[in-house]
């Protein structure tokens, strides 16, 4: 009995010593693993196949990339809801460039990044230097991007460009991972080209956030804007940079999305901004800023994909369930965050501060 209590209290003290970021990330990873195990145990055997996991990854590569960018903005305490719109605009522009202007893939990539850069510069300037609410700015950005997509080309179409089709169908086999089909042949699991970008972006951003001063400044600004200023950090530049990187990644994510679907359409990536925000929040990024990391975001995206997968394999395969499950998860995690903030504040306030002076 006694040792049990001891381990429990030790666990509790270890949890309370975790930083907010690590605590929330751990929750997300745990939730993801538990859900996956449950799916394997209680649902179809299909979840046991590695390819199921890689399918989710392939389908959501673009979402991971733009969610990572969004996480960066949210760490500084802002928000960007233009990422979905930018994705649609980027894939439409790339499609039109390839098919109607005989462009090449490299040019399309440059266009994608250029569009992202333009959005980042404008939105970043408005938010950081003119101090306009980020939500309003990026809401306008989203509508602008959606509208521009229609103006560029109003009808959805498939891209016939050969290079793109080849790229789209490129499959990278994963050694030693795979499953046996009915005849007993080994079929290796594969991933699409976009997943490489996911790995690069996630690893790169993780490193920047963890091991560079600029990266730590994002956290400081998000933790307390006023304090960050007092600590000698250039707050405006940091906020500007976060929006710039976010939009650039939205551009890159748009290109990856384009490679995955191989078409341009004004309806592309609809609702992606919500998925990206939901992924970041589920991945442990605090809306209030200062907390979160891209590993958590990665698992946030995968959790969303997984739960959609589970919901549809349980039989709720009507399209509306997707929206409702995402909303329910978002709502749950938001309330969990809100409770964590209150709890931590309370435990701080209970500390003796007898002579603390007012204002």
């Amino acid at each position, binding site marked *: 009995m006694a040792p049990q209590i001891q381990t429990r209290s030790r666990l509790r003290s270890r949890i*309370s*010593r*975790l*930083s*907010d*970021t690590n605590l929330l990330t751990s929750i997300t990873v745990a939730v993801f693993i538990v859900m996956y195990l449950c799916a394997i145990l209680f649902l179809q055997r299909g979840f046991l196949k590695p390819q199921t996991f890689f399918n989710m990854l392939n389908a959501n590569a673009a979402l991971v990339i733009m969610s990572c960018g969004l996480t960066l903005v949210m760490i500084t305490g802002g928000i960007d809801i233009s990422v979905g719109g930018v994705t649609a605009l980027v894939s439409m522009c790339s499609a039109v460039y390839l098919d109607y202007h005989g462009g090449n893939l490299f040019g399309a990539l440059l266009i994608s990044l250029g569009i992202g850069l333009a959005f980042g510069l404008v939105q970043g300037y408005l938010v950081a230097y003119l101090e306009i609410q980020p939500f309003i700015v990026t809401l306008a950005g989203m509508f602008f991007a959606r509208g521009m997509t229609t103006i560029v080309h109003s009808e959805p179409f498939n891209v016939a460009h050969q290079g793109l089709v080849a790229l789209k169908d490129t499959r990278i086999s994963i050694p030693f991972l795979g499953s046996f089909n009915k005849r007993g042949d080994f079929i290796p699991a594969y991933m699409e080209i976009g997943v490489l970008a996911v790995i690069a972006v996630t690893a790169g951003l993780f490193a920047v956030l*963890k*091991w*560079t*001063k*600029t*990266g*730590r*400044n994002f*956290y*400081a600004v*998000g*933790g*307390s804007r*006023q*304090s*960050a*200023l*007092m*600590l*000698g*950090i*250039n707050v405006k530049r940091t906020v500007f940079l976060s929006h710039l990187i976010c939009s650039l990644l939205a551009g890159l994510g748009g290109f990856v999305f384009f490679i995955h679907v191989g078409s341009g359409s004004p309806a592309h990536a609809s609702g992606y901004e919500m998925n990206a925000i939901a992924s970041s929040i589920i991945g442990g990024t605090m809306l209030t800023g*200062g*907390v979160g990391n891209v590993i958590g975001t990665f698992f946030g995206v995968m959790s969303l994909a997984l739960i959609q997968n589970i919901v549809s394999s349980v039989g709720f395969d009507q399209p509306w369930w997707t929206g409702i499950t995402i909303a329910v998860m978002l709502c749950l995690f938001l309330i969990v965050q809100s409770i964590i903030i209150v709890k*931590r504040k309370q435990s*701080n306030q209970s*500390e*003796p*501060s*007898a*002579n*603390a*002076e*007012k*204002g």
Partner: protein
Amino acid sequence: MREKSVLEMHGIYKSFPGVKALQNVDFYLREGEIHALMGENGAGKSTLIKVLTGVYGKDAGEIYLKGHSGPVRIHSPQDAQNAGISTVYQEISLCPNLSVAENIFIGRGKGMRVSWKQMNSDAAKLLTSLDIPAKPTQQLASCSIAVQQMVAIARAVDMDCRVLILDEPTSSLDESEVAKLFRLMRQLRERGVGIVFVTHFLDQVYEVCDRITVLRNGQLVGEYEIEALPRVQLVSKMLGKELDDMADIKNNLPVSTEKDSVPVYEAKGLCSTEGIQPFDFEIRRGEVNGFTGLLGSGRSESVRAIFGADRVTSGEVKVNGTPVQIKKPIDAMRHGIAYLAEDRKRDGIVGDLSVRDNIILALQVKNGFFKPFSKAKAIKFAREYIKLLDIKTASVNTPVASLSGGNQQKVILARWLLTHPNYLILDEPTRGIDVGTKVEIQKLVLKLAAEGMSVTFISSETDEMLRTCSRLLVMRDRKLVGELTGDQLTQSHIMNTIAGGEQA
């Protein structure tokens, strides 16, 4: 620059909308001294420091630093850091979401890379050398407020600074931590660092400081050697006694009024969430009493508890002898209590609304949701009180934010008078407003009391309290420590009770 000066500020002016925060303030800091910057709240200490550290831009004046020819330009805290000025602010200015080590090192040094190993081991050394009970990797938010403050001090000390500013760093520290801090300050003094020390604990000033600069109402009162300024004189310099033009106000009230009657308001063991000790309090019809004490002594918190502005945790309350529950401001208002809050900007005015709406607000709320005043009636009310209190405003529709501080205060006063309270609480009604208006408000208080209203009057200026109150409740360290009436109501008596301990 004067000889031996490490920092000089000349003719600093700074104003915010409606407030002149600093007017022609000079400040000299010598090498290797601990210099106390004293003054009551609103005197301009924090503003002066924020001007020095680049948080606020100054309107006029020059700052000189040793080693720089000509005035230096400080536009941001970063500039200040680079110029060798490091600061510990009154409110903890660290990031709660980062680790202790990061909070010590962020925003400093060159290069892009963060070496966690190096940083954590450096931080560990620093923490042990200063004997701070925190781990470098611990998240700052999980430390107590005192440790957080010590971490802020560690950061400031670790920077190779020539000027160290400590803006009320001791308010959350216990005795041993304060002793630790003082040891550190003396060490730094030996090294030739100039230290600016802001505090409202007089004991501490006399323990470590070499010289004192006193500010009042945004103006320089003077610069003194510590030996030349005994404690009581310091208090009188801080509180100000030059207001001779108020001599015509006389407290004509009988010292005790109707001792046998039922108190208008009575509380036993009242206590709120804001950390004051439970206290007993009563006030009778036509009485003017006051809470006095230095800043942070709990005088505002006490009256807020009476009004139900903070969450009341315990206590029995009687109004006119009947037990009542006062949990929210609206309860207090229904029982005829009115409260003019201490911070006019934060808790008083509704900035963008017109003078008219600001005046009728409280009565309107008391009146109920479905009984709005007609526009004509509201204007009538507003005009009546604008005339009564002589509020200087272009019209009843002028946004209250565009009025001067004194007139804003009168608008809020009008708001509460309009509710015709039996018991009026005025928390620092005279702060930050011109002398003429101060006199008017004091006269009004006495007039209202003569008409039968009970008033609790709080002011940082003891003279005002002496002129208006027939009974003073003295607070120290969030506790009621004394009650003064009749002959005890003298300047020196009050100061001694406030200062406590030493009898000067």
